């Protein structure tokens, strides 16, 4: 484990107990310069987690609660006529000035607001009235979706889901973690206990070094074969897109970096595969199985790179 990132995880764990894997995954996505879609029920600590992480990494944090009447300009900012100077001056919106933005219940926003956010995520800049304003660097969005009470929501289209690096679920805490939460919240707000152990410059530097993590052809071959197999799977309508494959490699690199390794292994790919691709494959209507099942089946079926390297001649059917 990377020593500094280990510290970050420790800090975040002070607040979110028993959720180390999700902290690691979000941190990995952060290192891979991607955005996270959290698909979960309310009250499991999505916001707390995001706040804790942003504090531990030393990022500025913004939060937007989406409702159908949140407008694109609320996010991107708008130009306002200043009668004193007689000019339009730019009022930054929610995404500006934030390193980490939590978009709560993104599926409740109107589709044009969603697309404004997605553009900001993709371009890392906003354009208002023909002028382009760069966003903070690093910039990351954690968007949440509520899987219950979806009435009156605007579900994210498939193409827009593709923009998120990973889609994660937190799930309920187990017995011990729940006890811990109850006990800790009695005294004071645990968020205050989280101190910054890194700066955003450190994070930017790490994001750079993640790109130089070594990835051999065997791994690339593995990712490619996984993507191809997903496209040929009988239950799948639309398989993993080239962008999806690219994201797998980014995420795997980041994971290797998080683990303190200078190279990507097959294990990295397998570890991130489900999270990266879960929302990227579109199942056939009569598929009769879930995306998760399809992905784990793919992992089982597609020959892993370890095997390929040792026994290149043997072809597995």
């Amino acid at each position, binding site marked *: 484990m990377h020593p500094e990132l280990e510290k970050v995880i420790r800090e975040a764990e002070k607040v979110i107990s028993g959720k180390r894997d999700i902290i690691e995954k979000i941190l990995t996505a952060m290192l891979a310069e991607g955005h996270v879609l959290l698909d979960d029920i309310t009250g499991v600590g999505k916001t707390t987690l995001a706040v804790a992480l942003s504090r531990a990494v030393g990022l500025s944090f913004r939060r937007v609660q989406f409702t159908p009447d949140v407008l694109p300009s609320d996010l991107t900012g708008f130009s306002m006529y200043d009668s004193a100077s007689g000019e339009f001056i730019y009022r930054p919106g929610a995404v500006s000035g934030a390193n980490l933005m939590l978009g709560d219940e993104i599926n409740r926003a109107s589709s044009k607001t969603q697309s404004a956010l997605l553009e900001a995520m993709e371009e890392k800049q906003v354009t208002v009235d023909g002028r382009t304003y760069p966003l903070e660097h690093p910039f990351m969005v954690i968007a949440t979706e509520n899987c219950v009470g979806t009435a009156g929501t605007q579900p994210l289209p498939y193409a827009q889901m593709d923009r998120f690096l990973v889609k994660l679920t937190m799930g309920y805490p187990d017995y011990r973690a729940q006890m811990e939460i109850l006990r800790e919240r009695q005294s004071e707000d645990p968020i205050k206990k989280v101190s910054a152990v890194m700066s955003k410059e450190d994070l930017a530097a790490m994001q750079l070094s993640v790109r130089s993590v*070594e*990835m*051999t052809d*065997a*791994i690339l071959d593995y990712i490619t074969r996984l993507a191809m197999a997903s496209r040929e799977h009988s239950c799948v309508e639309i398989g993993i897109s080239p962008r999806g494959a690219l994201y797998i490699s980014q995420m795997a690199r980041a994971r290797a970096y998080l683990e303190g*390794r*200078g*190279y*990507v*292994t*097959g*294990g990295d790919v*397998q570890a991130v595969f489900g999270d990266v691709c879960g929302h990227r494959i579109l199942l056939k209507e009569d598929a009769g199985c879930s995306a998760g099942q399809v992905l784990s089946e793919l992992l*089982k*079926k*597609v*020959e*892993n*790179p*370890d*095997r390929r*390297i*040792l*026994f290149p001649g043997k072809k*597995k059917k």
Partner: protein
Amino acid sequence: MKKSAAAYVLWLFLVVCLYFFENDTGTRTVLICSLLVPLLPPLREVFFPKHTPGQSEKAQIRTDTVPSPDEEPGDIRPYRAGDPVRLIHWKLSARTGKLLVRETEVLPGDILRERKNALPVKDAGEGKGKKLLLLILALMLICILTVTLLPEVRRSAQALCNRIFAASEKNNAYAYTYFPVGEDQSILPAVLAGIVFLALYAAGALLLHSRIPFLMLAAACALTQVYFGLALPVPVTVTVYSLAAAGTAARPLRPRAPAILLSAVLCVYVFTAVLIPGRDGRTEAASEKARDLAARFEMQITGLRPETKEEDTTARHLHHRSLSEGMGKAAAGREFRQVTLEEEEISMPSWTDSLRVLLLSLSALALLILPFVPFYLWDRRKKAVLEKKRPFASENVNEAVCAIFGSVIQWLEASGHGAGNLLYRDWVSRLPDLFGEGYRKRFLECAMDFEEAAYFSLPLSEDKRQRAMALLSETENVLWKAAGMKRRLIIKYRKCLC
């Protein structure tokens, strides 16, 4: 050593059989020579050499791992990283101040080196050798086809057989049915074909680097002689068996070996020819009885009734043989009867006869070749194993670690403990209880080493190779201990280091 001894015992058995049935000066010479082999040091050296560097008998190397103090110790070389500690020659190391190891234990890399020294052809011109071998086989086949199918050559072969019969009749009391070919039929083509065939066979055998083909040749010769009661002229006998024996000499051949063999055979030949020439009456009588018994037994089996009367068999009978008639009916050729001068005419061999002869020749060829097939396969397997182990000693530690770890994986898979398409580091959770906690820990370490070796371009340190080697030997040990009889055989086959 074991192999040499087995070969010698087989050889002795052959020669004794031969002598029993065809006792004359030639076979006696061969027998005496064979008996002299373990007794005379120079001869013994030719067939059972003491351990010398670069010698291919691994078994022998292993048996004398502890060199006696006055003896020149086996190969000593400086300690290399990765050598087992128990191989260190402490005494010498203490004397010289440097770590020295005995090269008595066969390490993967060492076997390779040894084999390389011992069998240059095998390693160097691998593909070429195989092709050559095939070519030789093809040529042998062509030889046989020529003899059976070309009428001229066939007639000449029959004439050659007639000559051999004639020569045999001088030496024993059998009457042979001659082939109906003219007296003036030239035997040259058949002799040539025979020589070519034998030369090809010898070349193939030399190429195989095995003594078995020569043993088989001698056996085939001896069996033919015994079965058909052929008594070859003395010089021919001596030459044929001497050559076959020379083929079974230990490899690599010493330069003096042919001279030693030749002089020994000459000495013994002169000795037997002068002092105990001719046939030995008692042996002759015994062999006659044995032949009778065998013939009766055969007739019981085949259901053929002898045409001879009782008194004829008890009397010194004449042994009737006909190649063209007899071979079709396998054992039926053995008939006992008085051979009269006006022997019946043998019908001209029709095309079915040619077919028969062809089939018989082919089956003879198959008999000559089939016995080595297991040896050949075994040898190939051994070579494959060595080839697989070649990267273990590679300069590139990454490659070595991958190869060694791959071998561990193959072991586990072969013994049914594999976890299929799981990443190797995840195999730990699937390992059976057979493997202890410590093993799991080491396996995981090595799996991570492997990942680093496979996915990272930076070279690993040397101790990772040793760690992997240790894991490999531990795996082998555990699996061997847990294996049943059948499984052990499989393991033995996979290791191929017996």
